[in-house]
């Protein structure tokens, strides 16, 4: 109460001096997991987001206030927190959402209440496909976007037969499905597929033996977090890496946990929308700032938070200040960021960005990412999204 009174008083004084600045405070709800299996991701995204707001502060008149809520990676909790942010805290915009499950749970609510949501991770294709919404803008990636071009690239490298493996849940199936699309369209053959029980599989040994017996030239995998660490280590320990090289969606060897994978990750080639070794000025500035702040190399999660903040800044710079105008402005964002040319596709509100093929290699101070190829940015097909008709 007292704080509010002081705040109001300060607001009055500030108002007397510089009217527009005080009026333009944008309330941002950060909806991220701070406990549960994705807590590390949530913390990285928030660090990136705060860095982004600070870095681009002078591009806009608006000032930002952040309210953070923990989804605990549980869809019902995520929805309850989203409702609280919108109805109680009256936020102007929500940013975050790591798990596709949470996104699925809050999608209708966000859409119906007309609050702009900047997705900073969750990559399920429907969110910018048949489930798309003028209020949902994705600054992270879509499962299809990351994997399909990798299928074409891998075939172009002369690989004819692959075996795929991923956890058995929607994201795992979408990532592998998109890769298989690209790979078979280019003329490759998938000789076997395995979907392992999500988050309960600790020993991949049984599956790896099947992969070896399949007669494939290479394995394409998607795992994230703890599962990625176990998988990459066990893949190496069975000596499979020499026999059949490991390729995958880049989360497999994310900078966030590649140190835990150690030498087992060396030589793994994967595709992702960001690695910290991309060479451009924006990325150099970002990496330096992130390292100064946290002492760590930024991960793809951090850059998603950073770019989400930058998109928000750019949207407010157009003069948008309320929910409706912010949603509209967010769909038109584009900039040269750490990931290279980054823009929102107005047909789906999904991000359009180049995809980087990188190899994990030993560097001077531990493992690092060597970019092998930059695949051109491709907009996802609308897949039932009718935004372009309404826009």
């Amino acid at each position, binding site marked *: 109460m007292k704080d509010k009174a002081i705040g109001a008083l300060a607001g009055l004084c500030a108002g007397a001096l510089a009217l527009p600045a005080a009026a333009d405070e944008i309330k941002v709800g950060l909806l991220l997991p701070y406990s549960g299996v994705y807590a590390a991701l949530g913390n990285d995204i928030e660090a990136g987001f705060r860095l982004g707001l600070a870095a681009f502060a002078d591009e806009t008149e608006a000032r930002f206030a952040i309210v953070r809520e923990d989804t605990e990676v549980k869809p*019902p909790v995520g929805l*309850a927190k989203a409702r609280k942010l919108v109805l109680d805290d009256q936020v102007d915009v929500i940013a975050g959402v790591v798990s596709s*499950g949470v996104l*699925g749970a809050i999608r209708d609510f966000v859409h119906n209440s007309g609050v702009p949501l900047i997705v900073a991770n969750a990559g399920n294709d429907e969110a910018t496909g048949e489930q798309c919404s003028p209020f949902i803008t994705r600054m992270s990636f879509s499962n299809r976007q990351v994997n399909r071009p990798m299928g074409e690239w891998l075939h172009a490298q002369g690989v004819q037969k692959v075996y795929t493996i991923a956890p058995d849940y929607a994201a795992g199936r979408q990532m592998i499905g998109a890769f298989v699309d690209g790979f078979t369209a280019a003329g490759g053959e998938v000789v076997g597929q395995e979907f392992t029980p999500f988050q309960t599989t600790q020993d991949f040994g049984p599956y790896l033996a099947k992969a070896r017996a399949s007669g494939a030239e290479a394995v394409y995998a998607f795992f994230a977090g703890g599962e990625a660490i176990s998988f990459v280590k066990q893949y190496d320990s069975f000596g499979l890496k020499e026999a059949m090289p490991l390729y995958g969606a880049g989360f497999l060897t994310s900078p966030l946990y590649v140190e835990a994978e150690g030498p087992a990750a060396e030589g793994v080639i994967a595709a992702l929308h960001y690695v910290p070794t991309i060479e451009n000025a924006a990325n150099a500035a970002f990496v330096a700032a992130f390292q100064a702040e946290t002492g760590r190399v930024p991960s793809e999660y951090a850059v998603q938070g950073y770019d989400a903040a930058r998109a928000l800044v750019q949207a407010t710079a157009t003069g948008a200040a309320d929910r409706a105008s912010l949603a509209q402005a967010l769909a038109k964002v584009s900039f040269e960021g750490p990931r290279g040319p980054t823009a929102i596709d107005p047909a789906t509100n999904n991000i359009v960005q180049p995809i980087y093929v990188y190899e994990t290699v030993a560097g001077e101070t531990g493992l690092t990412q060597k970019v092998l190829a930059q695949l051109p940015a491709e907009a996802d097909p609308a897949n039932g999204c009718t935004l372009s008709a309404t826009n």
Partner: protein
Amino acid sequence: MFHLSPLRLGTLALLFAGALFSAFASGYAGLEILTEILILAILVIALDMVAGFGGMVSLCHGALMGAGAYAFAMAGMSLGLPVWAAMLFAVLFTGAVGWIIGAICAGSHGIYFIMVTLAFGQMGYALVFESPFFGGDDGLAGLARPDLSALGIDLNRSRAFALYCLAALVLVALAAAQILRSGLGRALVGIRDNERRMRALGLTVWRTKAHLFGLSGMIAGLAGVLAAQHVMYISPGLMAWTVSGEALVVVILGGLGTFVGPILGAAAFVVLRHEIGALTPYWHLVVGLILIAVVMSRANGLFGFVEGRLARLAARRTAKADAPHREPRDA
């Protein structure tokens, strides 16, 4: 033996008044918390029935609640039943599942009973988690709330939904009290206190246990239906064994076998979690410590503590009042 003492009735009335007041007085977040409390209260009444009055400490009530939620969702989505029919189906289905589990586990006691129910709960969880039919880890969205527009009520509004849950809680509490007061409920308490004697009296023990577990399952199923309608989305997380563990915690926190205590415990637990959760992402740590402290204190939860104190006070007073009459008689 179960009876609604004046203290219990009074507390129930107070709780009801409090819920009603906050339903009208609170803002959005308050209503959300209130609804959460009401649904949890229904679940813990179900659990207290079997654990408190029957001595059957179940670690599968979270899974039963989840079974109710999934049955409701599937009845609506796959069978195409209207909302009310789907609700009824879900309650009956969960009751049947509860009855079967109760019948199978009737022979187990103590820690074995806990382990067996945990196993059944995990079985259900694995089934839902790994089968694409139930949406797997991604869950199912787009669940419907009942349409009360004929009565001029829009259940899509938070306040109306909270009152709807409150009405359900009142009905459940009345039904549970009735069950516990009935011959079945008395037989159950008898089994808890001395199973061999009840058997000698000619009671088919397993059947009594199965019936009560089935009824408890129906109530847990209703909690699941309400939870599904509240969030309008379900995922296997609802069935994880930790949910069952938390429900047990709430029962203990409020007072095992006191009927009123667990409802109080539900309110305390949800409020506590929100308050601590707002302060630190490490709220599990604090809640865990509080839980350990409550269990170790040996008081029977919040309500059991008050009840015990008042009973002792009353006993002392009667002892004092009786004293003058007794002395001459003894002499």
